């Protein structure tokens, strides 16, 4: 398959389509032609940017963001600070606060739906509705729910004779309010993923369990949940990666506040690079690399575990 002589031959005489000797080389040329559009986009907007991010992270910049001096690793050294520690902690708490209720909630919904005899499909569709909401539309609706002046949720609490909640105005509560919005947006996706997993469980498994006398909750807990292992794991990893990348809901609902209490890693990148005309691309790029590392670790964990699962089943 040396390209030289074969391509010469091709140039000399256009061979018939069935010519076995020229086909591999022509296939290869065509393959690269077919891959070229994708490769071009990846090279320009994914691979080159990664290199440039590394470059930017090691440079200081002037007030309009042009790199003007080499600073080595000092942006990374600056991250060993209480301020950045707080950002990482906020990110961690937010991620847990989104992933745990989201996955547990989706699992509960799917198991409950299994017990429904009629209308299962419509109910599942109802649970999937929030998936239609963009992060902006969901955040705007929840902004009305949380609004300090006439919060819809506080109105409901008031009618029930309960205390008002400072949804977005208290430092302790704001992060949870953003997390609730995020869980609401993501629950439908979890339901769809796990429902597809249940659909893939072989009939015989359930039949066998039933013959052994397992019904209702016991069937769900002892048979269905273990069989959903791969889907649950997938959902946990995807939800984690998504939660780490959450941006719109923070931007719209809290703007990172009050007093930085909802400033996660992605939001901090935005603030340093783009908000208030800061243009501190160096600092933001260093943080972007931290984000990249965290997401890579999550993905590698998933690849590792899934690979093992494949051999196991």
């Amino acid at each position, binding site marked *: 398959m040396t390209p030289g002589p074969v391509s010469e031959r091709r140039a000399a005489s256009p061979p018939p*389509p069935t010519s076995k000797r020229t086909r591999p080389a022509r296939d290869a040329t065509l393959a690269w032609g077919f891959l070229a559009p994708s490769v071009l986009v990846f090279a320009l*907007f994914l691979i080159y940017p990664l290199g440039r991010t590394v470059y930017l992270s090691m440079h200081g910049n002037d007030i309009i*963001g042009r790199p003007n001096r080499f600073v080595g690793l000092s942006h990374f050294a600056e991250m060993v600070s209480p301020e950045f520690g707080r950002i990482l902690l906020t990110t961690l708490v937010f991620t847990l606060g989104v992933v745990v209720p989201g996955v547990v909630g989706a699992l509960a919904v799917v198991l409950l739906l299994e017990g429904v005899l009629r209308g299962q499909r419509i109910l599942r569709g109802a649970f999937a509705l929030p998936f239609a909401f963009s992060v902006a539309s969901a955040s705007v609706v929840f902004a009305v729910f949380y609004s300090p002046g006439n919060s*819809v949720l506080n109105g409901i609490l008031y009618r029930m004779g309960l205390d008002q909640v400072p949804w977005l105005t208290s430092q302790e509560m704001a992060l949870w309010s953003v997390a609730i919005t995020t869980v609401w947006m993501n629950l439908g996706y979890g339901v769809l993923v796990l429902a597809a997993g249940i659909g893939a469980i072989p009939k015989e498994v359930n039949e066998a369990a039933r013959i052994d006398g397992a019904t209702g909750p016991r069937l769900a807990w002892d048979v269905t949940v273990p069989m959903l292992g*791969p889907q649950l794991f997938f959902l946990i990893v995807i939800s984690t990666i998504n939660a780490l990348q959450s941006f719109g809901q923070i931007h719209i609902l809290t703007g990172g506040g009050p007093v930085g209490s909802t400033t996660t890693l992605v939001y901090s990148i935005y603030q340093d690079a783009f908000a208030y005309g800061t243009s501190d691309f160096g600092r933001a790029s260093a943080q972007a690399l931290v984000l*990249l590392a965290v*997401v890579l670790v999550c993905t590698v964990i998933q690849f590792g575990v899934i690979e093992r699962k494949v051999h196991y089943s």
Partner: protein
Amino acid sequence: MSREPSAAVGAAGTGTATGTVREPERTGPVRARARHRHGFGHVFGRVLLFLLLAAFLVPVLFPVYYMFVGTFMEPRELSTFPPRLLPTGVHPENVQGALAAVPLLRMYTNSLVMAGIITLCQLFTSALAAYAFVFLRFRGSAVVFALFLSTLMVPAEATFIPNYLTLTGWGLGDTYAGLVLPFLAYAFGTFLLRQSFKQFPRELYDAARIDGMGHLRFLWTILVPLSKPALTAVGMYVFITSWNMYFWPLIITRSTEMQTLQIGLNSLKVGESSNPGLLLAGAALSVLPTLALVIFGQRFIVRGLTAGAVK
């Protein structure tokens, strides 16, 4: 959920997925369980089940309900405390107010153009690449495919700063080109279409080739028409994620004329935070297209979304 086409679905690329998802409602347990319907304990169980389901369903549906009901309330009914929860009639003031406050229709067009271009281009680039991986033999095919998949691991947010600098450097800030260029190819689509193409009957391919049909003609006249379900699944998925993009349109657009609907919602929220009715009306208007897709195309969406989750 971050709706940027990014690592959001990245982990789906495990090579273990099948690309097809069995419809969950075809499973046996439903009918089998009907046989167990008897006794007081059973009735109690059913009641408990429905109460628990309602406990989840009400909070999930309430925001959807309130968005539409609030949209058609009178503005003052929403700005009193406690705000009304039940509809009182159909009042168009909020919708009119939202359209007057922000040029939502123009932004609708921008979102449609952006999401449309991204979807068509991704289908094009993904189908070509998937074809190369399935039907063409070339050295390093497996390695290149692995490299394609590895691009899914990169969170889009990590590339936004350099992409912003590149595109504004080319003078493409605040243009459609700037909005769409970084998203014209995406390995997730390639991955899904590869799964689908692999199931294409080999004999049909061989027959077409022996008849002297070229690769491009085979791709266009036979493979694409027969792969419509997979293409639709990918297309819908890409359309919804790009329609919902937030971070990138926020930084690359400046003028109201170029902003997308999602950014318009934020402007509405910033400018009209004291008018909850306008916010709800804006959200309702922006959700309509994707809501229609989710309701009428759920089967395709499930297929695209869960492809990585089921072996």
